[in-house]
């Protein structure tokens, strides 16, 4: 079997005395869509925060494409191929849609950000790519619109688009449909399927329908640990998972 593109080994994260993640070991295979599900507070977002370097690990290892990245600072991880979107939309609200995306692309060339003697060019590869990503993500809006004036659903799409601008090897999507209308879900399913051709996706999602539709493998977390892993069909038959979700709408 091929090596996983993303691997965590006994990843543990403590906040004070509280274990938000306990010895989480998962293998994400290249070009798959890997779901991460679990009840509220299971530690899914914490796992992403560790993977993206937003918070430091307490212990454990993270391997991206064979390379240990667990101790790399947050700002270099996009350069190594790790892109992420946020559960709570986090945009540059008073900047335009185009500028939000362009900034995410410019960040891949760290030296470029320190150029102070040249005016920002009006045409650049970054801008071209931004238009490309907007088109493929199906966000059909004027690029000079301020991010703040987009609808909630559009902001969620822009959130994902920003993560895509980094041309990630592994894309971490934290509940991309949260707060979206039910009508927007099919569009997201289509987008996720089309992403499989260019990168590996790790997807946190509460919408079980969406998970069953698009995911190849699903990891189930509860109280900071992995309690089950398998195909969507296997997971929905799993007793431990049923107990974890008892009382919740699965």
């Amino acid at each position, binding site marked *: 079997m091929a090596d996983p593109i993303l691997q965590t080994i006994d990843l543990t994260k403590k906040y004070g005395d509280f274990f938000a993640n306990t010895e989480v070991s998962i293998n994400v295979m290249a070009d798959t869509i890997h779901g991460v599900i679990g009840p509220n507070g299971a530690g899914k977002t914490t796992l992403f925060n560790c993977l*993206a370097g*937003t918070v430091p690990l307490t212990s454990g290892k993270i391997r991206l494409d064979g390379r240990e990245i667990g101790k790399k*600072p*947050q*700002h*270099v*991880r*996009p*350069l190594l191929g790790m892109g*992420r979107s*946020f559960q709570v939309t*986090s*945009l*540059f*609200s*008073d*900047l*335009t849609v*185009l*500028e939000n995306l*362009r*900034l*995410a692309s*410019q*960040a*891949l060339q*760290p030296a*470029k*950000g*320190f*150029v*102070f*003697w*040249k*005016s*920002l060019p*009006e045409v650049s590869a970054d801008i071209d790519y931004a238009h490309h990503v907007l088109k493929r993500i199906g966000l059909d809006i*004027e690029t*000079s619109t301020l991010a703040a004036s987009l609808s909630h659903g559009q902001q969620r799409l822009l959130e994902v688009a*920003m993560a895509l*601008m*980094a041309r990630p090897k592994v894309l971490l999507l934290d509940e991309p449909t949260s707060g979206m209308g039910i009508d927007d879900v099919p569009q997201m399913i289509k987008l996720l399927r089309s992403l499989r051709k260019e990168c590996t996706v790790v997807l946190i999602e509460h919408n079980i329908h969406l998970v069953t539709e698009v995911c190849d493998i699903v990891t189930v977390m509860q109280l900071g640990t992995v309690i089950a892993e398998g195909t969507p069909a296997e997971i929905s038959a799993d007793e431990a998972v049923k107990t974890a979700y008892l009382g919740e709408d699965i």
Partner: protein
Amino acid sequence: MTRNFPLGFHIGAATVFAFILPFVVPSEVLATEILIFALAAIGCNLLLGYTGLLSFGQALFFGAGAYFAGLMSIHLPFGLFTVLLISTIAGAAIAVIVGFFSIRRAGIYFVMLTLAFGQLGYYIAFLAEPLTGGEDGLLSVVRPSLTIPFIAKFDFATNTSFYYVTAVTFVMAFTLLQRLVDSPLGSVLRAIKQNEARAEAIGYQVRLYKIAVFAFSGAVTSLSGALYALMLNFAPLSNIDIETSEVILFMCVLGGLGSLYGSILGAVIFLLASDFFAELWPRWMLLLGLMLVMIMLYMPGGLWKSVCSLFARLSGTDDTVKKGGANG
């Protein structure tokens, strides 16, 4: 992304402004002072208006520039250009140190650290009396001359000639910094101001950018302090005190955050109003304070924004008109 004006436009605008200014304000000295404080307000705007960093320690850079220029002019045989250049670089270096430590804390603690550094600078200047003149200030600062080898030697004893030195420096510094805010670096600073966490998450090392903007702010503020000492032929202790930080901050906010033209306007209005009220009434500070309160209350975006929207309304390209047109 808004379209940037070409560099020539800014050079032209700054030059025209600097050329007209001495003819419309009451004195050349006041005109010189306006250009000097416009640069200081611009330095403050880089931090606050573009990056979201509120510094209460700008007087440290201003005062340092004044002392450096003063001391060099008294003790060293340097020409004008060298004196201004070294003051600028020294200001950047101090700002890098202040920035390096201050940005380790966020929010109110960051502000307090800049204030503390400012106070530290004040006490050092106060105690280093043999060097700085302490409470009396550094006296008998002389304006260095400018020598172009084999061609000419200029000195700047008159107010008029010194105004032109200031004006040329102003145009150059303004142009460079306007270029900076229109540059890729400027775009990252705006992103940091908007959402620091996301800027870091998409790959910008926010800490380095903040130190860089401190360096630029320190450099231009120190340059303005240097010009001020040369203008006064004197570097008073008050250059480095908290009130100077306040004045610089005030001009910056008054003019409007996020526009270098706003900072110029802020300096113009602040200094003209001070000058005007001072002749009206000995308790003029009261009037000035009142005016500032009114502007803050009724023009929260600063003077520059109000001027721009006034022009927009007059020429029919009002924001609301534009939006209505796009939607409808």
